């Protein structure tokens, strides 16, 4: 009797000894890796939000530290929840990948080899995306010094005991090397397509790895590699549509991917349902949509000052991205790309085909001594989808520098609210512009200043004696 009552077994969780017992459980674990990535603290919302609000496009309305006020005012210290929670969630994703890869090796016989390779690829892609994301906030840009600065600790082995608390930060370059290794190893094993549009959007396939590589290389300033990878997904001339695997292309209306979440434009998105939403105060719609019953909480509105993109002359009122995604409420303009009501089950876009086109356009522009015609064609493909008759003023395309600038501006318009602004500022070594809210003016932050990147979280500093703070 004793033995029995003293050895109860949890009825709501599964023992580690049985977690790889069946193909179904292994597949559930793959979904589990995505679901960790999808945490509200990370790709479910906050990672994108932080990268947007660090920049100049948005103004903080509510002075609430819980919803990113300190991030917005470029005044985060190592004890802040934003810094600690995102780091912890990202590394939780990484460790779950590492645990999974080890378990997969130990239980390889239980599943079909094709599936095995595919799962390995997915896990590695998730790890690569996570390391990439960590670098964007906690490390100096690769482009500053070819990655010689301190990056983040590179954890590649599963951790489940009290050992190994201490680990040094690898350099930015070393972490990128691992990211590219993971992506290059992932690509061949990943399936070309899945059986449904939903899976094609919410699970990684070959083109996902390729698209992500264009982003990674662009961030590193390795433009030739962006072109190599981008060419796998984008034909030389219009119509632009991926030639193999999932046949990615832009939707006719820019609004479509934000209501029909599983079109071929969405290369990767985080799926949301009412039963599986991003969680309180993590939701894109809650932050960006106007406040009001049935809307969001209007945490951030668009900056009307000239620094902000809202009133940039390159973004005319006729543009579908303005007519569809901007609304005015209480005298302020709000972004309504994410328009679902509570619990805000809008899918979170991670990679869209439009980004790949702009990545490729910029890489072409940056590697050409004259304004790249292909770059201009790709730029126009994105622009004219939303403003069919729009033609750029020739001066905006006249020199490589002007063209690059125009492409960067187009990224601000096309990708607003999708977590790119801070990354684009940092990889181009630009000063983060200042901004003024009704309660607080925030000064610009130059690349030389500490506030340019986030501090290493205090929880890591307390437990990892080898970590060097930023």
């Amino acid at each position: 009797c004793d033995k029995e009552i003293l050895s109860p077994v949890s009825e709501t969780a599964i023992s580690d000894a049985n977690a790889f017992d069946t193909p179904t459980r292994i597949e559930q674990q793959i979904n589990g890796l995505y679901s960790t990535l999808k945490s509200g603290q990370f790709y479910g919302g906050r990672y994108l939000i932080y990268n947007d609000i660090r920049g100049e496009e948005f103004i903080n309305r509510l002075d609430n530290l819980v919803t990113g006020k300190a991030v917005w005012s470029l005044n985060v210290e190592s004890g802040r929840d934003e810094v600690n929670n995102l780091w912890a969630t990202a590394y939780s994703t990484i460790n779950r990948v590492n645990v999974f890869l080890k378990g997969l090796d130990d239980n390889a016989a239980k599943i079909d080899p094709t599936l095995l390779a595919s799962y390995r690829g997915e896990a590695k892609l998730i790890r690569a995306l996570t390391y990439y994301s960590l670098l964007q906030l906690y490390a100096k840009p690769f482009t500053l010094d070819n990655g010689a600065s301190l990056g983040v600790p590179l954890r590649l082995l599963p951790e489940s005991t009290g050992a190994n608390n201490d680990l040094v930060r690898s350099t930015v370059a070393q972490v990128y090397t691992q990211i590219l290794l993971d992506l290059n190893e992932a690509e061949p094993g990943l399936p070309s397509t899945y059986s449904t549009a939903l899976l094609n959007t919410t699970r990684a396939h070959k083109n996902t790895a390729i698209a992500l590589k264009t982003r990674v290389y662009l961030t590193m300033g390795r433009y030739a590699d962006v072109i190599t990878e981008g060419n796998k997904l984008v034909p030389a001339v219009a119509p632009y549509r991926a030639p193999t695997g999932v046949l990615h292309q832009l939707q006719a209306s820019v609004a479509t991917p934000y209501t029909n979440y599983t079109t071929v434009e969405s290369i990767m998105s985080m799926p949301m349902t009412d039963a599986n939403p991003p969680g309180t105060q993590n939701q894109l719609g809650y932050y960006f949509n106007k406040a009001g019953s049935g809307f969001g909480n209007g945490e951030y509105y668009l900056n009307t000052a000239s620094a902000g993109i809202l009133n940039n002359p390159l973004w005319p009122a006729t543009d579908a991205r303005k007519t569809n995604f901007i609304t005015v409420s209480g005298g302020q303009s709000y972004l309504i790309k994410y328009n679902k009501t509570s619990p805000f089950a809008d899918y979170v876009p991670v990679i869209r085909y439009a980004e790949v086109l702009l990545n490729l356009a910029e890489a072409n522009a940056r590697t050409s001594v004259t304004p790249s015609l292909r770059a201009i064609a790709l730029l126009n493909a994105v622009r004219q989808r939303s403003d069919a008759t729009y033609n750029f003023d020739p001066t905006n395309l006249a020199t490589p520098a002007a063209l690059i600038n125009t492409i960067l501006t187009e990224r601000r318009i096309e990708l607003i609210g999708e977590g790119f602004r801070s990354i684009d500022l940092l990889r181009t070594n630009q000063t983060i512009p200042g901004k003024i809210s009704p309660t607080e003016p925030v000064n610009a932050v130059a690349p030389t200043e500490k506030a340019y990147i986030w501090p290493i979280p205090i929880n890591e500093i307390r437990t990892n004696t080898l970590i060097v703070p930023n």
Partner: protein
Amino acid sequence: QDRTITGTVTAKDDGTPLPGVSITIKGNKVGTQTNLDGRYSIQVPLNSSELVFSYVGFISKTAIIKGSTVNVVLESDSRALSEVVVTGYGTQKRDEFTGSSAKVSGDVLKDRPIQSFGQGLTGQAAGVNIIQPNGVLNNPPVIRVRGFNSISLSSFPLIVVDGIPIVSGDVSPNNAANNTLGDINPSDIESIDILKDAASTSIYGSRGAAGVLIITTKKGKQGQAKVNLDSWFGITNPTRLPDILNASEYIAYKNEAVLNSKISGGNAANPAVASALFFPINNPDGSIVDTRWYDEVYREAYSQNHSLSISGATDKTTYYFSAGLSDQDGFIKRNNFKRNTARFNVNQKVTDWLKFVGNINITNSKNEAPNTGSLPGQAFGTSGLGRLAVLTAPNVYAVNPDGSYNISSANLVGQGNNLSQSGFTNAAAILDLNTFTSESNRILATVGTTINLVKGLTLTSNYSVDKITTESISFSSPVHGDGFTVQGEAANYLGNRNNWNWSSSLNYNKTFATKHNVDALVGYEAQEFTTRNWGGLRQQVADPFFNDYQGNYTLNQPPVGNAIGQRAFAAVFTRLNYNYGGKYFVTANLRRDGNSTLAAGRKYGNFGGVSAGWLISEEGFFKNSKLSDNISKIRIKGSYGVVGNGNLPSDFGSNFLFGSGLYGASSTLVFAQAGNTELQWETSKQTNIGLDLGFLNDRISFEATYFKNNIDGLILDAPQSPSKGIPGNTILQNIGSMYNQGIELGINASILEKGKFKWNANINYTNVKNEVTSLATGNADIAGVTSLETANITRVGYSVGSINAVKTAGINPDNGRRIFINKAGQMVQYQHVNLTGQSRWTFMDGSIAPAITLADAQIQGSAIPKWYGGFNNNFSYGRLDLGLQFTYSGGNVIYNGSQAGLRDQRFWNNQTDVLRRWTTPGQITDIPRPIFGDNVSNGSAFPIDANVEDGDFLRLSNATLGYKLPTNLLTKAKIGSVRIYASVNNAFLITNYTGSDPETSTNGNSNLAPGVERNSVPQGRTFTFGLNVGF
């Protein structure tokens, strides 16, 4: 030749006849009892000259026989009760008990305006520290016996009611606190014994490390049936609310900060930057709107409590039946506690050798509370009333003149003419619109038997069940507040807690060769707790008419609060008490305890202790010495024991688990808990040395105790580097150690007894030092978190959960900036808004300094009181009685986080102390130049030492004045006794602490984050008027 002696025995107090008094002839075994009228008759041999009168609760008296009538007056013995110590699985006479314990009589509790007995124990016993976390009704008090006894596990003592260990804590998942200990009617409690040292608690093995509170409920007493009615009515008001700015002060002060911001940012001439954001609005009568939010949140509250009991006993049957009704309103609006209880205790002798006991306690308790923001984890909620009452702008309406709530379409309090946000939610609206309740139905029952197998050998077996069903309901309105975004939300939870316990023991009691007294016990016990919780969540209420879960909603969310828990203990135990001639005493305890939560193969642990005492005053040499003239008792005692703690926070804490969830519509499985295959007991090695003295026939007694508890192999939620990605970033490990060391002193005295005047007093003092001696690998600090803020740190060389804050050095008189001290000891000043290109953080010479962060914080002091105690006085003069209970505590610091909020320079309203802010160069002050938006200089961004204060205090926790009505009046009405009284609870507080109360604990029972006040509601002061009637 015999003669017949007759007489009457009466009580000295009120002259009533005493039935059931036993009368024996000295030196003879013959005896009798008084009848219902207190009369007796006894046949006495001629050679006998003395009669001995004894009665429970009264001092025995020996009377010399003169004539044939001997009338005796017996004096009640306030110490009689305390002469018996209830130990685990038995009782012992105090003189024979060699461990360390304290006893509190139930009388202390029964007339107090409290919800649970724990609240009434403050200052009553040496070594026991009790804190009321805030003024929310029925939230569990923090009880610490001899300091903090763990870091990651609970430091709450084990609660045993009539032999059954029961669950403690808050079982409500919503805002309405629901303390399981509130299910016990304090009026039913006869006594509480608090076991403090390992030699006493190790009989409870794994669960005794933080002390054991043994509750004994009332039993009937031989004699005429007694009927008692106790009733009181109470009035409660909040105390010590901070003085905050009124509307015109608010407008002026905030605008000054706005203008300072504009100037400091170099925008003096920039019309795009506002110069003022706050403007008045006028009432219909032309006066400016000046809302006192305190009046929206707090009230004068009325409470009542009634208990009726019937008890009695024959020589075969003892019974106690009671019913209780309590209806208490809190001083926070919509805070209410209702409890209905019934208890039946019966004890039946079937034959000479067979006895049965049965107890049953049935309780319904219903708690209602709004979102007070005062329960653990709620400190920073934007709808917490404790916070809303102080920070909401006073220059806006609570309710508009047309009767509608002043709320904005963006779910904030309407901002009137202000151009800035003016608050979070509207307190008046959320109080009216939202509902939170938690209701428990509980049955606590025991049936047991005692069998006398042979002379001296007894078998006792008890089976108990404790079943609690808790239904917790919440509704958040779509109109305003936390339910706004989700368009209305209802969440219902059902919790079922089952606890059964079966214990059996054999007891052998014998005296050999007249002087060797042996009392031996062996026993077996098994106990199992199971928990099954489930709940539902519905959102988007279909129609404003619906405000229950059962109404219609358009969105049914996944279930919430689902949990299944199971935890069991199994043990064998033994105890041997031996004394030689009533002078030398030895006790040894041993328990082998199994605990289901520990790792396989490590579930069992052995615990035990030995204690010994020497009653010097019983020695011949002492009795013959002069000392014995004044000193009636000298005893020294000592104990050493090892006791365990295995109260893991999770039932499956040692297991490696994968949890299942969702990824969109697909199910998932993720690594969710890193277990530990070697997880075993946390052990506490405790030494106790005591000296007991009695003077003047024990009229004055003195107790002194030294204790040291070494806790090894602490089960720590060992922090892991977040980069390892361990779920929750912690692993339960047997790592770390700490100790508690201290002394306890107690004096009990009948100070004065002159005619009708009597003064009894007891004072107790405890001094305890806690120090952490090692932590997880590398001795990494453990942060203690108050929701969004970290003000505590647990670090080797300091006490658990020490207050940790950044040092400051006042305000720079030149520019009004707050000066901080960084880790390197350098002064760094802060200005929130600056010219472009200039830094917020500068050294005193103006050069750029690295930003101050939490990493610059330093330990400010212990969050745990180093000394505390009580001073209790009972005066009586004839029929009048007066009780004064003082409590005191100190040696600790408190992080007054609420003050950071009260000085926050966002739209927050401020305490009036900000009016002494810096305005002019050269001015010396402690309040910086206000800059709108500044949340750093006041300590909101990270804790600063300017908000750390000493926690010393003296409180008159209760003063009661009572009057017993004259007996002659009552006899006619056939009423035994009537006492009326008036009392005040929390009468006054003497302290330099400026926050609401030095006993506040925003983080409740937390070990890692004690001593923090952050946005909690204050305490109340209660006046009660009561009546005790005996028939």
